[in-house]
C-alpha cells in the first residue's frame, strides 16, 4: 500500500514538474536528425542548468519518456530525502558518483547495466554545469566508454537552447522564456576510432545543433 502511494506520488510529482517546466519555457522539440520513435538511445546534451534533464524528459513523447532515465550525480541527488525521492522515484535516475575516490560502483558499468535493461539514457558528457563563456566544456570519457561497450545503441546529440537564461546558475526563481531542444542525427563509434577523436566528433555534432539566433 505504501509502495503504491509512493509510486502514485512520484507520478504526480513528475507530471507537476513537467507542467511547470512547460509553463515556464514552452519547450519546443525540433526533431532534426531523428524521429520521436521508441528506439533505444543515449541522448547526450549540453548542460547549463539544473533543469536540463527535466526539459529533455518533458519534450519526449510519453511512451519514450517512461523508458528514458537521466544519468545524474549521486552526491547531489542523495543529499536530502526530497532530492532522493525526485531523483530515484520520480525520474528513476541512474545515480553515478562523480568522486572517483568515494565511489563503490563504476559509472560506465552502471550505465551499461541500465541500457541492458532496455532503458534509454539522458547524459551530460560535460560532467557539470557549464557557466563559462565556452560553448561546451571538454567532454568526460564516459560517452566514449559507453559507445564502445554498446556500439549498436544510437547516441543522439541534443542541443538545449536558452535554459541557462531561464535559470542561470545561482538563481532560484526561473524567468519564463521559450527553450528549444534540437535533436541531431545519431552517432556511433567507428572502426578504430580513438577516444579523443570520438569525443571531439561527438562534441562537434552537438555544437553544430545550436540555433542560429542567439541574441
Amino acid at each position: 500500500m505504501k509502495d503504491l502511494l509512493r509510486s502514485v506520488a512520484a507520478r504526480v510529482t513528475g507530471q507537476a514538474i513537467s507542467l511547470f517546466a512547460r509553463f515556464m519555457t514552452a519547450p519546443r522539440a525540433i526533431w532534426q536528425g531523428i524521429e520521436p520513435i521508441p528506439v533505444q538511445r543515449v541522448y547526450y546534451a549540453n548542460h547549463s542548468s539544473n533543469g536540463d534533464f527535466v526539459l529533455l524528459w518533458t519534450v519526449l513523447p510519453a511512451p519514450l519518456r517512461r523508458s528514458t532515465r537521466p544519468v545524474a550525480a549521486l552526491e547531489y541527488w542523495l543529499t536530502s530525502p526530497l532530492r532522493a525521492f525526485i531523483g530515484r522515484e520520480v525520474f528513476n535516475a541512474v545515480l553515478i558518483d562523480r568522486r572517483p575516490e568515494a565511489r563503490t560502483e563504476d559509472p560506465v558499468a552502471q550505465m551499461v547495466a541500465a541500457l541492458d535493461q532496455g532503458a534509454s539514457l539522458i547524459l551530460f558528457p560535460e560532467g557539470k554545469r557549464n557557466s563559462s563563456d565556452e560553448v561546451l566544456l571538454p567532454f568526460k570519457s564516459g560517452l566514449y566508454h559507453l559507445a564502445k561497450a554498446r556500439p549498436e545503441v544510437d547516441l543522439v546529440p541534443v542541443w538545449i537552447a536558452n535554459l541557462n537564461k531561464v535559470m542561470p546558475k545561482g538563481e532560484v526563481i526561473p524567468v519564463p522564456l521559450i527553450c528549444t531542444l534540437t535533436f541531431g542525427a545519431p552517432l556511433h563509434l567507428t572502426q578504430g576510432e580513438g577516444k579523443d577523436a570520438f569525443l571531439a566528433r561527438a562534441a562537434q555534432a552537438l555544437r553544430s545543433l545550436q540555433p542560429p539566433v542567439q541574441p
Partner: protein
Amino acid sequence: MTSPHLLWLLSGVAAILVLASALGEILRRRLSPRGDNPVIENLNARINAWWVMVFFLGLAFLVGKPGVVLLFALASFAALREFLTLTRYDRADHWSLLGCFFLVLPLQYYFVLTDWYGMYSVFIPVYAFLLLPVVSALHGSTRDFLVRVSETQWALMICVYCVSHVPALLYLQIPGFEGRNVILIAYLIFVVQLSDVMQYVWGKLVGRTRVAPTLSPSKTWEGLIGGALTASAVGTALWWMTPFSPLQAAGMCLLITLMGFFGGLVMSAIKRDRGIKDWGHLIAGHGGFLDRLDSVIFAAPIFFHVTRWLWSTT
C-alpha cells in the same frame, strides 16, 4: 454576460468556421490527399486553431469579467515569454525580467479587473518605465544598458499594456449599452481578425504590389485594400449590435483594420531583424501568440480610447 447579440456574433463565427472547415476538407481531398501539400496543411491547421481560439474566447465570455481578464492575462504571459526570448540578454536583468512577469503583468490585470483606469493607463508607461531600469542598474552590468531596458519596456508595452486594453473595454460605461460591453471585445477582435484573414485571401488571389518589400513578401496593397474594405463592410453591416451609427461603425472599422495592418507591419520588422519567421510555435499553423495578436495589439488601445472619448461617460 451573454446577450442575444453576442450569441448572434458567435453563431456567425461558428458558421464561418464550419464553412471554412468544410472547404479545407474538400481542398485536402483534392490537392493534398496524402497530407503532403504544405499550403493546404497549414490552412487546415489554421482553421483548427481558430476553433480552439473561438472556444476559449466564448468560454471566457460565459464566465464574465474575471474570465475575460484571466484569458487575456494568460495571452499576455505567453506573448511576453515570446518577446523576451528574442531581446538582448544579460544576467543582470534576471530580477527585472522576473518583475515583468510576476509583478507588473499581474498588477496591470488586477488594476483592469478592479476598473482602476487612472492606474492601469499609466502603470506601465510611468511606474514600470521608471523603476525596472533601476533594478537592472543596481545589478551592475552596463553592457548595452539602454538597448536592454528599452527592449524590456517595449515588450511590456506591446505584450501587457496594449493587450490589457481588450478586457478594459468591459468597463466602459456607454449610455444605452449597459451590460453589452462584451460585444465591443467580440466586435474588435472579429473585425480585426477578419481583416487579417481577408488580407491573406485577397493577397493570395490578386496581390502584386508589395507595401514594404524589405519587411514582408506577403503584405500587398491589393491585399491591404481588399482585406480592410471587406472587413470594414462586414463590420459596418453589424453596426446595429454596437453603440455606433452605420457611418461611425464604418469609420471605426477603417481605423482598427488600418491599425491592425500597422501592427502586422511593425511586428514583421522586428521578426525580420531577428531572423525569425514566427514568434513562437504554440498556435499550430499560425505560429506564436504574438503572430496572431499583433493586429489586435495595435488596434485595441486606439479602439478603447476613441470609444471612451466619444461614447463613454467615464
